[in-house]
């Protein structure tokens, strides 16, 4: 049987399954929009019981994945929707993490290295720390955004990159936060019979993570289809036209930055409560890049895409690499001292993370630049439909060019760019 035959049969049987009727509706109807969401939610609720049966560490892995789903969805607001390249997103993760640590630790350190007690958010007050972390991160997002959002593209990327580097360093060098040793954070308090502090029972944490992920998904979904989401996309497409159509550029961009940061703060809070010990060295540029790769892999601007991107990369990082490492080191060809591939014993596959990310990114850009589950608009942008759809591609290109120069002139009073634009118009 040829491959085409198999494929034809397969697609036949898939459509046969999809057109199966359940209670008078086609299966396809159940797999669209919010119904699919509910089905997936039910799956996620049952999931830990299944995972526990396969490998208990998979439940912990899912919690680690959940944190990054939150972070990726947050960065997606900034990069995917508003088109502002933020390379320092880790800053908000740090702020969220330290908020929970400071809030639960009960001590700060003075300049002489002495611990001084401070009031802590003990007991059920803990839950206030999550919104507080979100608000603080949001505040810093706005503080960073206010002076820098006039910058574009590469310049904004560099400034945000700097911010991402500075924030962990501040936590390392300001005396209060115990420098490089970092701080420990308490897990959430027991709620009735539910306890978060039992290392052998990760279910409560799993469901806490799931709840926060669902909350963030609901939030970003709501924003995406709203007037604010429209304004973000308009800005990404053509800033000047958006501004002339009544979109307040500063306010709208700040909103993207602030909300992205807010979500990052939630991710940070969850992270601190879960890992329970944080230090400045845990937060570096690699995290910003990893989150960015997640959303590029999944599909910029696409909520399901970003979620899948986060799941794939985080799963590789937290679970798969370790398993590959153990498997390879356990091979008879590798293990014994005289084994022919003994040198592989010295290779730690866990450190190959960025090699693998790099390869994934390279193949994605070559084979599927729009991402795993692309956003409709992004796909179109990448295929250049927007630029040359009028059939007269030369005209389209010229328009783009002029538009670009117009913007350069319009943005500031940059003399060179301005006179350039002037030369072209009229």
């Amino acid at each position, binding site marked *: 049987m040829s491959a085409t035959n198999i494929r034809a049969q397969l697609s036949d049987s898939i459509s046969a399954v999809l057109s199966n009727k359940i209670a008078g509706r086609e299966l396809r109807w159940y797999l669209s929009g919010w119904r699919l969401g509910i089905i997936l939610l039910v799956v996620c609720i049952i999931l830990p019981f299944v995972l526990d049966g396969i490998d208990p560490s998979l439940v912990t892995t899912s919690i680690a994945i959940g944190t990054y789903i939150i972070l990726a969805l947050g960065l997606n607001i900034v990069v995917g929707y508003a088109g502002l390249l933020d390379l320092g997103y880790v800053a908000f993760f740090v702020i969220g993490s330290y908020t929970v640590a400071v809030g639960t630790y009960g001590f700060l350190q003075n300049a002489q290295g002495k611990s001084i007690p401070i009031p802590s958010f003990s007991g059920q007050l803990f839950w206030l720390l999550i919104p507080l972390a979100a608000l603080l991160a949001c505040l810093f997002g706005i503080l960073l955004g206010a002076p820098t959002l006039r910058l574009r593209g590469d310049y904004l990327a560099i400034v945000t990159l700097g911010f991402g580097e500075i924030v962990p360093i501040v936590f390392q060098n300001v005396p209060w936060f115990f420098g490089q040793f970092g701080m420990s954070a308490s897990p959430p308090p027991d709620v009735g019979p539910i306890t978060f502090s039992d290392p052998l029972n990760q279910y409560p944490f799993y469901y806490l993570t799931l709840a926060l992920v669902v909350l963030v998904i609901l939030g970003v979904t709501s924003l995406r289809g709203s007037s604010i989401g429209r304004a973000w996309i308009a800005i990404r497409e053509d800033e000047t036209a958006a501004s002339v159509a009544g979109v307040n550029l500063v306010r709208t961009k700040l909103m993207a930055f602030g*909300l992205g940061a807010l979500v990052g703060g939630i991710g940070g809070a969850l992270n601190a409560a879960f890992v329970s010990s944080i230090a400045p060295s845990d937060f570096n540029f690699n995290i910003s890049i990893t989150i960015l790769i997640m959303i590029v892999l999944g599909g910029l601007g696409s909520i399901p895409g970003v979620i899948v991107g986060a799941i794939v990369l985080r799963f590789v990082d937290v679970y798969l690499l370790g398993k590959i490492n153990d498997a390879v080191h356990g091979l008879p060809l590798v293990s014994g001292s005289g084994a022919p591939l003994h040198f592989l014993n010295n290779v730690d596959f866990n450190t190959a993370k960025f090699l693998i990310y790099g390869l994934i990114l390279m193949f994605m850009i070559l084979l599927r630049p729009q991402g795993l589950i692309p956003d409709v608009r992004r796909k179109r942008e990448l295929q250049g439909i927007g630029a040359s759809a009028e059939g007269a591609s030369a005209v389209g290109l010229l328009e783009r060019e*002029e538009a670009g120069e*117009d913007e350069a002139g319009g943005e500031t009073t940059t003399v060179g760019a301005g006179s350039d634009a002037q030369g072209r118009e009229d």
Partner: protein
Amino acid sequence: MPENVLLRLRDVKKVFGGLTAVDGITFDVNQGEIYSVIGPNGAGKTTVFNLITGIYKPDGGEMLFEGQSISGLSPDRVLRRGITRTFQNIRLFNNMTVLENVLVGQHSKIPGNLPSVLLHLPNYQRAERRAEERAVELLSFFGPSLVARKDDYAANLSYAERRRVEIARALGSEPKLLLLDEPTAGMNDAETGEAINYIQRLRSEFGLTILLIEHKLQVTMGISDRIAVLDYGRKIAEGVPAEIQRNEQVIEAYLGRKAAVE
């Protein structure tokens, strides 16, 4: 007459490096008028539009709209005062649908406070529904064909249709003054005829005042109440179409330029 003035420009200047693009331009646009700005290439017409709509900041002079200064306001604030525009090289959001484009034009009409939007509170939902109805209404101004294409991506429309969507987007903010930058550029005679028709209808049906940049004499002479002629960033003539056609300086500006090129 003076209390009739909607937009007043007094001695407005714009300098780019060594080039004075707009060199002290003064004119008044009256309520309900179709006022055209013409002139050779590089005369500074589009720069004047960019100054009025806040894309550029003026280097001198004053601009009053309904008696209040609009100098130095950002484009979205100029829009809230009641001025909006279209662009010479149509600037639609290509990867948004026609409907979404027109909805962005109504951005100033929809409550923008985060809780309303995030939670889709009733006041937001109402505004959004109203905006959608209004968008369809605005599209139907150009006939049923554009309404039928409201869910198509803007990039997939024909050139003339794109022009219309851009005007519909501009109308979404319920402007008092509409600036059209070469609305018939790139159109054939039939399409130009339609454009002339709907520009006049914009005034009669929406009560708009229209400021127009146009090269085609068929358009400017046909529908303008008054015309200003710019050359090298200065206004060299102003008057009703018949006066402009006879004006020596205007003929010289056009023919002189042409002769120099040859």
